[in-house]
């Protein structure tokens, strides 16, 4: 590269280059399945999708609550369900040794899943 391409910068470059590195790196998001890790690999794939749907449901639920169209009893039941879903999800993640970042697959040109 013949010229300096960093035209303007106001942050700490150390921190920023690390951050860009994380954005650019997709190594962590490789979904690897082989005979030895078939269980956890598949679990990662499935849990990623479940987690995506769970978060969508939660977001939609909050929109409804915020919209004020639900009764107290409905909100109560919604809370119970969402809470149990989250607890269950935590158990599953623990069981398969997965972290939140494991469940955020980088889809390259499509951007992060979550």
């Amino acid at each position, binding site marked *: 590269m013949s010229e300096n*391409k960093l035209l303007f910068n106001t942050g700490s*470059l150390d921190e920023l*280059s690390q951050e860009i590195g994380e954005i*650019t790196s997709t190594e962590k998001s*490789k*979904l690897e*399945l082989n005979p030895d890790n078939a269980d956890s690999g598949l679990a990662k*794939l499935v849990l990623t999708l479940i987690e995506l749907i769970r978060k969508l449901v939660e977001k939609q639920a909050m929109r409804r609550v915020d919209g004020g169209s639900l009764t107290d009893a409905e909100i109560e039941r919604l809370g119970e369900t969402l809470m149990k879903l989250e607890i269950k999800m935590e158990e599953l993640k623990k069981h398969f040794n997965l972290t939140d970042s494991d469940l955020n697959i980088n889809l*390259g040109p*499509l951007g992060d899943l979550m």
Partner: protein
Amino acid sequence: MHDNIIDRSKDVTILELLDRVLNKGVILTGDIVISVADVDLIYLGVKLMLSSVETMEKLKSGRYITSEKA
């Protein structure tokens, strides 16, 4: 410390450059890959792209599941 700043600025530039040349530009095929038993099936990104051309060739022949999107 001055050298360090130059290094960092180079890092940022290289990362930006790699992001472009590996993730953007004209695409011949999709590149999201999942590997099963060491056989790459769906590609996801940078690291894989670097060793992926043979697979991309195969992807082009349509034998694997591909997901493509510009």
